[in-house]
């Protein structure tokens, strides 16, 4: 009945806070850091805007009104209009939703691919590990934006292409982290005890390695959100990302760039939310990492 013994959950240790309390403590620690407080504020603003976009949007973001072309900000159009007379505030709000949808979808796909790959590399045979590492190294040595351009020229622009580019770019670094964690877990006593009790590989990987790997991986993904948002906006700015009719920050910037000598309003309206988002998520991610796992900070001595 060896397997039954291992499946009995460990009794809660007295004095160790439960998960909700630990989450609350982490949150307090993140917010008490001035950097984290700014980050949480900005992230909350962006997430709320993305969630409430259909409710709070003042105009149809794609409705064209030639008479009101390139209007300056006013009470009717708080952020003015673009070169087709579309309301910029509405486009920015819906653009927030686009940015968050693309970022979260691609990160979720990347994590889902990187977790098994990294665990196989770390736990499996040496030759497989070497093969995976070589493959990851090769993909990492492709400069990200160049990789993006190459994929776009093959598959054509669109949301799914952007997601594919982001996944291709992030899987190697995530899988590498999972692999390193798995390798160090492999030699720990509790895994050895499992192996001694003849536990299956799948069981060890999913019940013991996975829970220990997910935490650091989520922090890394959180730190990556601003890079991912930048990549999506960048590709859209080049006209190679989200389709022009879908409002996105990159598309607003792209439209604004073409009329930059006539009106600075669209470029400012598209760029400021992007800057706020990247800064917000970076500050939040840094504070979260400091609160949860100082070891991950490359600037600190382990």
């Amino acid at each position, binding site marked *: 009945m060896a397997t039954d013994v291992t499946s009995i959950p460990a009794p809660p240790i007295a004095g160790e806070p439960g998960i909700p309390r630990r989450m609350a403590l982490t949150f307090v620690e993140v917010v008490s850091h001035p950097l984290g407080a700014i980050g949480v504020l900005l992230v909350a603003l962006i997430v709320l805007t993305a969630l409430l976009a259909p409710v709070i949007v003042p105009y149809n973001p794609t409705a064209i009104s030639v008479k009101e072309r390139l209007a300056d900000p006013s009470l009717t159009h708080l952020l003015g209009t673009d070169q087709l007379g579309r309301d910029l505030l509405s486009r920015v709000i819906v653009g927030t939703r686009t940015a968050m949808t693309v970022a979260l979808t691609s990160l979720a796909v990347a994590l889902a691919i990187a977790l098994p790959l990294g665990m196989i590399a770390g736990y499996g045979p040496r030759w497989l590990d070497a093969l995976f590492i070589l493959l990851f190294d090769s993909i990492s040595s492709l*400069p990200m934006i160049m990789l993006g*351009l190459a994929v776009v020229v*093959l598959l054509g622009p669109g949301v799914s292409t952007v997601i594919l580019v982001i996944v291709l770019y992030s899987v190697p670094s995530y899988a590498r982290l999972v692999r390193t964690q798995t390798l160090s877990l492999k030699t720990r006593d509790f895994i050895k005890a499992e192996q001694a009790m003849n536990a299956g590989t799948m069981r060890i990987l999913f019940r013991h390695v996975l829970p220990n790997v997910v935490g650091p991986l989520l922090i890394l993904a959180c730190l990556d959100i*601003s890079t991912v948002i930048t990549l999506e906006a960048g590709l859209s700015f*080049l006209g190679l990302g989200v389709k022009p009719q879908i409002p996105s920050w990159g598309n607003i910037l792209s439209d604004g760039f073409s009329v930059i*000598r006539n009106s600075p309003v669209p470029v400012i309206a598209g760029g400021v939310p992007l*800057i706020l988002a990247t800064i917000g998520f970076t500050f939040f991610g*840094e504070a979260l990492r400091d609160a949860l796992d100082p070891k991950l900070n490359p600037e600190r001595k382990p």
Partner: protein
Amino acid sequence: MITFLLRRTGLAVVILVIVAILLFLMMHMIPGDPTVVALGPRSTPEMREAFRQMMGLDRPFIEQLGLFLARLAHGDLGQDVWSRRPVLTMILEVLPYTATLALASFLWAVTLGVLLGCIAVVHHGKWGDWLIGLVSIAFVAVPSFVVALYSLLVFAVWLNWLPAIGAGEPGDLAAQLRSLILPSFAVGLGWVGYVSRLIRAAMIEAMGEDYVRTLRAYGVAERRITYRYALKQALLAVLPVIAIGFGGLLTGSVFAEIVFTRPGLGKMTYDAVMSRNFPVVMGTVLVTSGLYVACMIIADAVTALLDPRVRSTL
């Protein structure tokens, strides 16, 4: 040392071959007729047939792959679909522009970054340190193409101080330098933050070492310890990281080149993507990967030169 470098170079070559194979596979995974994809829907049947023969698409898959790699080994990156010029020649023509931009951004960003890092260390734990830390992270986070757009808006459109387009006429050094200011500002800004954080961390680590304590005990001035000893150690520690990053700067210039309509690798790739000039895209991606990997080898060599322990690990 030499065997170490040879081994690293060997690994780099293997990586580049894999990159080439990946690109080749990507070309073959596209649904539909590859000639239509490469030449665009406007191409005529004769053009497609010529392209098919030029690329050897009528032969078996493995033979095509072998041919592709053999051509690469000879430095043949294929031809421009429209002008029929060799891709390698085109790349070598624009490479100096990108290299100049990357180098200029690198120089100003590293100088300012090191300076900010030092100031942060001198004010360690005080508000000056905190402020520099905040600004540094913000610099790293802000997308470089937004910096490019905003600096274009302010300094070229509003103030009209600096040119918005091009790289200056050949031979006119002053105009070339003026055209370099805004793009290198956009490319380098993120680096300022990155370098200042690295230098700050490395110096703080250095200040905790025993020899610094001994120096203090001997009564060496704090200023001399900071700039003479800790900074030296920090610079050596940061050098390899910076060398790797230089490869990143080459691609960081893609957006600056497009926003400022500056000739260069990035602009060329973008134009090729827009005109679906597939061999040119392949060529630039391969060359930039090669440069990237070369920077990694240089970084390894620098590290190995400075730290004998590393040589045995790889």
